[in-house]
C-alpha cells in the first residue's frame, strides 16, 4: 500500500514484477539498476538460490524526484517465479500498488504464462485486491530470441491469452538487451501514481 | 622452525593461562561465562538469570526472589555471599515492581551482581579481601543506582506538578515504598552486632583501596553501613517527593 508522509512530503509506492519462472523479471530490474547506477544511489538487493534463481525477492528502490510538491520513492520488487514458491510470492505481493506482468514469449512457456496470471489473480484476492482494478502493465518479453531461431508466440496470441479481459497497456520487450524495459517501468509508475492521486481525492 | 613452534606454543600457553587464571571486571555476557555449573548450588540461579536476559515477567522475577531466599539459607554462614544475594533480591524486587519503568542500569546491576556472586561462590581459592572487594564494588553500583532512581523520581514528581502527563505516575508513591521496603531488608544485620557498625564518612571511591587493609569484620561492617547510608538518602528523596506531591494536590 502506498504511504503518504505529510511531514516529509513524500510518497512511497510499491511495484511488483510478476510472471512465470525464468521469464525475465529479475533481468528487468538488473537492467534498470545497471543502466541508472549513477542516478540510483542505493544498491539492488537480490536474494537468490545458488542456481541464480530468485529465492525470495529482488528489490530496487529509487527516487524519481518531485511531483506536485511530493518526493516520490518507488520500490520495485520481483517475485520468485517457480511454482513451489507461491507462499513467498504472496508475501512479496503484500501492499503492491502496481504490477508488471512479465510474460515469456517462448512458445514452450505458453501454459506457464497462463498459470502465472491465474496465480497472480488468486494471490491478489487474498489481500482483497482485484486484478482488474490494480494498475498493471503487460510485458511480452524475450522478443530478441526470434533472431536466434527460437519459436516465439506472436504478440497477438499473447494478447489473446493474457490481455483480452484485462486490456492493460502492453510492451514487446527484451529485458536482456533493454528494449522497452524503461518504457514499461515509466508506464507502470505513471499509472500507479495516477491511481493513487484518484484515490487520495 | 623450532623457534616458530615455540612462539606458537607460547602464545597458546599464554592464552590458556589467561583463560584459567585471568580476572576481568568487565560485566560481559552471562551466557559467555564458562564456569562449570552442573552440580553447583548456583545452577538454578544462573538459569533464572539467563532467562531474565531473554524475558522479564512476573513469573521469572518471583522465581528469582524465591531462589535468592533459598540460597540465603544455603549460604547462611557466608556473609559476603548472603549480602550479594540480598543485593540481587532487592534489585529483583525493584525491577519486578517497575518493569519497563525501571531504570536501565537496574538490569545491568542485576547482571554484574550475579557475575561477581558467581565468581565469589565458584572460586575456591579467592581471598577474603578479594571477595569483599567485589562485594563493595557492587554495593557502590547499587548506591549509585539508588541515587539515580531517587533523582529521576523527584524530577518526575516535579513534572506532574507542572501538568505534564505521565502514565507511570499513579505508581510513583508506591514505588519508593516498595523499593524502600526492599532496601530495608538489607539493613537487618543478623550476623553482626549493632555496636560493631561504626560510621565511616566520605566517598566510597577513595576508600576502596583502604578496604584491603581492613579486617574482615570491619569490611563487612563498612558494607552494611554503606547500605544504611543509601537507605537514608532514599528516604530523604522520598520525603521530598511526598512533599511535592502533596503540594501538587
Amino acid at each position: 500500500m502506498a504511504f503518504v508522509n505529510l511531514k516529509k512530503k513524500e510518497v512511497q509506492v510499491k511495484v511488483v514484477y510478476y510472471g512465470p519462472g525464468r521469464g525475465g523479471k529479475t533481468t528487468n530490474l538488473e537492467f534498470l539498476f545497471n543502466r541508472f547506477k549513477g542516478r540510483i544511489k542505493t544498491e539492488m538487493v537480490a536474494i537468490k538460490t545458488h542456481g541464480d534463481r530468485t529465492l525470495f525477492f529482488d528489490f530496487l528502490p529509487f527516487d524519481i524526484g518531485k511531483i506536485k510538491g511530493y518526493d516520490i520513492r518507488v520500490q520495485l520488487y520481483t517475485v520468485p517465479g517457480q511454482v513451489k514458491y507461491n507462499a513467498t510470492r504472496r508475501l512479496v505481493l503484500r501492499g503492491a500498488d502496481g504490477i508488471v506482468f512479465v510474460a515469456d514469449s517462448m512458445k514452450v512457456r505458453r501454459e506457464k504464462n497462463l498459470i502465472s496470471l491465474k496465480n497472480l489473480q488468486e494471490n491478489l484476492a487474498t489481500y482483497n485486491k482485484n486484478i482488474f482494478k490494480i494498475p498493471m502493465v503487460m510485458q511480452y518479453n524475450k522478443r530478441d530470441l526470434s533472431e536466434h531461431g527460437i519459436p516465439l508466440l506472436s504478440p497477438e496470441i499473447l494478447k489473446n491469452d493474457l490481455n483480452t479481459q484485462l486490456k492493460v497497456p502492453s510492451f514487446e520487450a527484451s529485458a536482456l538487451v533493454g528494449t522497452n524495459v524503461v518504457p514499461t517501468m515509466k508506464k507502470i509508475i505513471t499509472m500507479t501514481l495516477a491511481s493513487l492521486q484518484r484515490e487520495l481525492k | 622452525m623450532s623457534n616458530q613452534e615455540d612462539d606458537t606454543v607460547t602464545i597458546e600457553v599464554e592464552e590458556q593461562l589467561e583463560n584459567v587464571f585471568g580476572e576481568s571486571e568487565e560485566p560481559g555476557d552471562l551466557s559467555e561465562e564458562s564456569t562449570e555449573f552442573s552440580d553447583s548450588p548456583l545452577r538454578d540461579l544462573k538459569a533464572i538469570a539467563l532467562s531474565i536476559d531473554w524475558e522479564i515477567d512476573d513469573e521469572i522475577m518471583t522465581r528469582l526472589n524465591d531462589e535468592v531466599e533459598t540460597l540465603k539459607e544455603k549460604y547462611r554462614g557466608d556473609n559476603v555471599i548472603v549480602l550479594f544475594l540480598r543485593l540481587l533480591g532487592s534489585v529483583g524486587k525493584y525491577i519486578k515492581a517497575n518493569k519497563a519503568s525501571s531504570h536501565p542500569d537496574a538490569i545491568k546491576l542485576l547482571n554484574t551482581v550475579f557475575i561477581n556472586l558467581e565468581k565469589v561462590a565458584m572460586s575456591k581459592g579467592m581471598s577474603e579481601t578479594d571477595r569483599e572487594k567485589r562485594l563493595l564494588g557492587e554495593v557502590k553500583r547499587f548506591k549509585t543506582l539508588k541515587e539515580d532512581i531517587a533523582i529521576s523520581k523527584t524530577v518526575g514528581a516535579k513534572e506532574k506538578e507542572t501538568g505534564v502527563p505521565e502514565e507511570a505516575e499513579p505508581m510513583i508513591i508506591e514505588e519508593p515504598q516498595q523499593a524502600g521496603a526492599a532496601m530495608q531488608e538489607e539493613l537487618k544485620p543478623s550476623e553482626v552486632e549493632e555496636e560493631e557498625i561504626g560510621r565511616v564518612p566520605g566517598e566510597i571511591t577513595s576508600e576502596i583501596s583502604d578496604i584491603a587493609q581492613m579486617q574482615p569484620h570491619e569490611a563487612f561492617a563498612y558494607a552494611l553501613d554503606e547500605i544504611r547510608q543509601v537507605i537514608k538518602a532514599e528516604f530523604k528523596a522520598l520525603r521530598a517527593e511526598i512533599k511535592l506531591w502533596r503540594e501538587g494536590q
Partner: protein
Amino acid sequence: MEYTLGQKQLDGMEDVLRQDLIDLGVHCVFLIDMAGNVIVNLDNGDIEHDIYSLAALAAGNFGAVSAMAKIVGEQEFSLLFHKGEKESIHFSKVLADFLLVTIFGKETSLGFLRLKVAEAIGKIAKILEF
C-alpha cells in the same frame, strides 16, 4: 489502497521512539509497514545503514516467519530476534499492518528491551489508530 500519516502523528511516534528506545541506548529503530515502506526512522547518530533495504528485508523476513508460524499451528511467534556479535535485531508487530524493528548492541539486555518495546508499541498503536 493507501494510507496517510500527518505531521502530528509522525512527530508523536518519533517522540515515543526517541524517549523509550533511543534514549535507552538502542542504536537504531524504525517503524515500517508490511509492504516494506519506512514510516519513522531514528538512530543514535552513529548509524549509516541502508534503511530502505533493511525495511524491505525486515518486512519479508517477518512475513516469512509469520507464514511459518501458521503452518506449524501458531497464530504468531512471540519473539523474532536475531543475535549478532555486536549488533542484534528485534522485530515486533504493531497492530496488524506495521512492524517495529530495533537494532541494538551488547550493552542493552534483550529482556529489558522487550519490556520497553512493548510499552512503546502501546503508545504508537494509539497514535496510529487515532
